[in-house]
């Protein structure tokens, strides 16, 4: 168990590799109740969300979710988040556990100018279970009357799971098909047990934080606090697609538009090691023709499914073309690595 944003969470149940492979090959169940939930509602809720979110929430249909950023006025990340449109003027923001208080204070302050809308920190009202993997629908369907086939990717529906009122969302943080189920905390244990029971024929196993990290990294997903934070802009993080460039105004818009016009000096890339070793977060990277370090690795591991040492690092843009080689300083040993496109792993559709 480790302490994580005030929660005691298991790093692993049966082992990171076994859990990682279960999600890629069958399905695994995560308790991600630590994630925060902030709701924004009121007549002008859309305008409020449009102000604080980088992405364009006007494109969201009821029940639809989108990945977005909560930016500083410099265009850097206060947090990354998922935004659901629950009703025309009611939005649910799913934020990182360690950022709940910071996000809420920032959002509550910033939406005042948007008119009639209120933000509520609803984190204590939700437990969140993530059933991830190709067998997810087969495991969950017997427990619910909701036709899961009709919930498309990044859509959600309300219904019951194991007799408990839930919101079922076809989302996740693993690069795999799967569902995230929002449940009342007092019923979370019942739903957790029911999913594991239903998953027995598919050998579904509980998964911890360790596998969640290796899975998201293989899928090229950024982790707040590692790959993105208040020092990295959305363009440096190569996440320009979560910016609604056609929106009028939003937090960070001016800085991001300027950066888009002028270009960035550095950009995040995926890499893999060409020699044996594991490049971990915090290790420094050296490129030819520079005496000082060119960047610091933000995430890195040996991935259980691809069986490669991969990671992410911010590099000067002239060194970010796939195939470009550089050295990682692994405890004093220079180890060759090459830039590769992300995601490292993409599921077959």
């Amino acid at each position: 168990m480790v302490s994580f944003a005030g929660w005691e969470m298991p790093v692993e149940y049966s082992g990171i590799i076994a859990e990682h492979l279960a999600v890629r090959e069958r399905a695994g169940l995560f308790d991600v109740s630590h994630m925060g939930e902030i709701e924004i509602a009121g007549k002008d809720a859309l305008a409020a969300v449009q102000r604080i979110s980088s992405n364009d929430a006007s494109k969201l249909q009821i029940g639809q979710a989108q990945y977005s950023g909560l930016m500083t006025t410099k265009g850097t990340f206060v947090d990354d988040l998922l935004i659901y449109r629950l009703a025309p003027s009611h939005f649910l923001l799913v934020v990182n556990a360690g950022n709940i208080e910071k996000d809420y204070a920032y959002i509550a302050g910033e939406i005042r100018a948007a008119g009639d809308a209120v933000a509520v920190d609803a984190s204590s009202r939700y437990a969140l279970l993530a059933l991830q993997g190709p067998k997810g629908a087969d495991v969950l369907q017997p427990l619910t009357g909701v036709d899961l086939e009709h919930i498309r990717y990044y859509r959600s529906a309300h219904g019951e799971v194991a007799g408990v009122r839930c919101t079922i969302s076809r989302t996740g943080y693993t690069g795999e098909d799967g569902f995230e189920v929002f449940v009342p905390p007092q019923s979370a244990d019942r739903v957790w047990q029911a999913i594991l029971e239903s998953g027995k024929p598919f050998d579904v196993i509980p998964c911890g934080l360790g596998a969640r990290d290796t899975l998201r990294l293989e899928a090229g997903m950024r982790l707040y606090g590692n790959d993105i934070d208040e020092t990295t802009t959305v363009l440096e993080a190569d996440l320009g697609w979560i910016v609604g460039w056609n929106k009028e105004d939003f937090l960070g818009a001016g800085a991001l538009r300027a950066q888009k016009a002028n270009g960035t000096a550095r950009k995040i890339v995926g890499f893999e090691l060409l020699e044996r070793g594991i490049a971990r977060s915090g290790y420094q990277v050296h490129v030819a023709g520079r005496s000082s370090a060119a960047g610091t690795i933000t995430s890195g591991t040996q991935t259980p499914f691809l069986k490669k040492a991969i990671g992410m690092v911010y590099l000067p843009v002239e060194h970010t073309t796939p195939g470009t080689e550089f050295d990682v300083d692994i405890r004093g040993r220079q180890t060759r690595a090459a830039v590769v496109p992300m995601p490292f792993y993409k599921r077959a559709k």
Partner: protein
Amino acid sequence: MAYPSGFKYTKDHEWVDLAGDTGRIGITDYAQNQLGDVVYIELPEVGARLKQGQSFGTIESVKAVSELYSPVTGEVTEVNTALKDKPENVNKDPHGSWMIAVKLANAGEAGALLDATAYQDLVK
């Protein structure tokens, strides 16, 4: 898992299996369990001279990297290179997965290490 009674152990969770003036060295079941899935092991070359307590390599699991410390002073006479390709053997069979063999320079050192009972108490 039982700790072999013929081995000697360190507080850093290495074991040494002595035969004459040579000892084979590995890590304990407790250590592999703490590390989790081992994916990479870096070992010294034959001929390397080690002091008791000195690092002779590194072992990496998915979640962490850890130093390997020599329980004894001496010269490396053999390296189990098979572990390079099968590092997971350390998880499956920690007390059978020796990493290096060392020709002891000071036989008295090993006597002062923990026996199986004392080690078992340590990790209880």
